[in-house]
């Protein structure tokens, strides 16, 4: 429980920062103020200013938006495509469909997400949208596998058998009986994938394949601070901390949620 609260608290700080940034940021992140560049933290600029005199606190807020948006959509793509695939594979266990889906998944799994991203950006150019697609594709097999393995064990249950006897088709059973029973698992997996998505977005932006300027992104802030780090370490510290704390928060929340939602663990505890 403690993990869950701490995790949710950390996560909600960044979600709140992202939401508030839609309405208000202390400074305009697209406005450059070169005479005030590289100011140390404190004073008017809480986290200092970057090499163009932009307010780092505001950039972290807007960067949270970028990170969270990319991660949410990417996890969404993974779920929307991956879960039905996994359910279909489980419903037609050991058929050619099952083989086709799962071997296809293995194929995608074998590619590191960065390689997929480089491939996509080489063809379509670098942008936040393409980063989302790349991370999303990488998420598909994760959700397909999780939902297939969970669904497989459910298919052995008696209540599924009675549903089949009652004449329900595989699609209806999957939708009405299997899916609601694996939701817990998907939520836990989703939280973990979400944190991985934030890391992946940071990594892609770091190498220049993610969100393009002037849209702030934590990964790109890190990349741009690289040559300045000995001169102005705060440039790297704040986006670095933002990434670490968000990912930590999401992982703690994921762990906590699993403790709370996973029936097996619940039984073990009581």
């Amino acid at each position, binding site marked *: 429980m403690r993990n869950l609260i701490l995790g949710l608290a950390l996560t909600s700080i960044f979600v709140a920062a992202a939401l508030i940034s839609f309405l208000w940021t202390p400074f305009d992140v697209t406005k450059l103020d070169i005479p005030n560049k590289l100011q140390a933290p404190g004073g008017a600029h809480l986290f200092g200013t970057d090499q163009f005199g932009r307010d780092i606190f505001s950039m972290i807020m807007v960067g949270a938006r970028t990170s969270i948006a990319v991660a949410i959509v990417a996890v969404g793509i993974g779920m929307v495509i991956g879960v039905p695939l996994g359910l279909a594979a489980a419903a037609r266990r050991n058929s050619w469909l099952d083989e086709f889906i799962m071997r296809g998944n293995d194929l995608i799994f074998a590619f590191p997400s960065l390689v997929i991203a480089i491939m996509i950006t080489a063809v379509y150019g670098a942008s936040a949208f393409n980063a989302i697609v790349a991370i999303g594709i990488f998420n598909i097999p994760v959700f397909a596998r999780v939902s297939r393995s969970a669904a497989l064990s459910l298919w052995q249950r008696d209540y599924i058998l009675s549903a089949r006897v009652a004449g329900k088709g595989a699609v209806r059973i999957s939708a009405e009986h299997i899916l609601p029973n694996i939701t817990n698992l998907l939520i836990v997996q989703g939280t973990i994938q979400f944190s991985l998505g934030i890391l992946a977005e940071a990594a892609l932006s770091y190498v*220049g394949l993610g969100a393009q*300027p002037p849209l702030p992104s934590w990964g790109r802030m890190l990349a741009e601070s690289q040559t300045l780090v000995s001169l102005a370490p705060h440039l790297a510290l704040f986006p670095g901390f933002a990434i670490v704390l968000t990912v930590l928060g999401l992982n703690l929340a994921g762990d906590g949620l699993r403790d709370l939602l996973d029936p097996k663990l619940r039984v073990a505890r009581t």
Partner: protein
Amino acid sequence: MNRVLTGGVLAVALTSSAIAQTDATVGLQLEPPHLDPTSAAAGAIDQVVYSNVFEGLTRFGPDGSVNPGLAESWEVSDDGLVYTFALRDGVTFHDGTALDAGDVVFSLDRARAEDSTNAQKALFEGIESVEAVDDTTVRVTLKAPQGQFLFNMAWGDAVIVAPESIENIQTNPIGTGAFKFDNWTQGDNISLVKNPDYWGEPAKLERVEFKFISEPTAAFAAMMAEDIDAFYSYPAPENLVQFDADPRFEVLEGSTEGETILAMNNKDEHFSNKLVRQAVSMAIDRQAIIDGAMFGYGTPIGTHFAPHHPDYVDLLSNSPHDVAKAKELLAEAGYPDGFSTTLKLPPPSYARRGGEIIAAQLREIGIETEISNLEWAQWLEEVFRGKNYGLTIVSHTEPFDIGIYARPDYYFQYDNPDVQALVEKLGVENDPDMRRDLAQDAQKIISEDYVNGYLFQLALTSVTNAKLKGIWPNAPTQAVDMTAVSWVE
């Protein structure tokens, strides 16, 4: 065992540092694709071999002056058509073969041949014929008088090569310079050793190693750890403050031939309108770009000409930073609410950082830019060859390159017969006063036509060990001439 080895290495290191140092390692950002300066445009080739390994009839001095090279002297006929070069005696190539007039004829004929892959064929276009009068005399006849001929012959693309060694020139360059090519570890370094049989002032260093470090962070670390003795054209101006403050190092600040411009696609639907181009030029705050992107290093320019050149005209007043005026111009051009365009940026930090600043400045007058960061290969493909762009930022590093404005098919697609006529005249004019007038007229026209946004002259900032002396602070051409470099205690 390990400890014994470390001890041994340490002992060797100690003894070698006790004797006077005769080798130097110089960091460079780009590794050359191969080592033949006469068959590729890559400036990285010239940086390694120009003057060090290969020499031409004439050569550039550190200040950009044209000095005798392999030609000891020359005579020009009264009509300006015939140049008779007297070659130096007793010059040998690194493989032992002697330099004679035949090698010069071979080199120039090869460069201007139909199937030549020389990157600067225009340098040789005016040559009618090249003949060997005797072993040490060469006569070059021009089609028309040419103002720049001796200057042209000093380029890295015009160095003298030998037919005996031409086959393997790309991997084993054989020239006449004060250093011989020694070894190339691809992806890491190229080493040169002193040529003991050099015809002129011998090199002071026994060995020179060029080490290729593309990453500014790695360059900073290597310099700080003194793994390298100098870094020519240091890529991250933000670190220079620290080097400057450290007594171990010296920061050399010079000027390059690099006019850094915000190039506009003159055939683009928006930028074909001169008012739009003027608006963009006036939206730019040059000082903010120099401070923000280059940490103060750079000189503002108002036209495509190097400010250190004697024929430069200061035309900054044509495009002062004036947001209100820029907005007016944009409205007059029919875009009161601005428009969107693309800003495609190659990798150097002047472009990437400068691009973000310019995007913010253009936003002030209502022009939204979609920034895309491209690798060099992509940039060459999309922007330079494909001309598929609205705006881009690039530094034009060739000396005296105003002639590109006379090429309507060049990537910014500027087509003005007046400039074309001026450049053509400039190509044949010999008289320095006339040349100055022509060059200044051309500068004025392109500045008043707002062909491109003229930003700043790229500063050349190199970092060297404080005891290493003789590295050129300026870059009259792409060269890291090591022949006069030495250690001073």
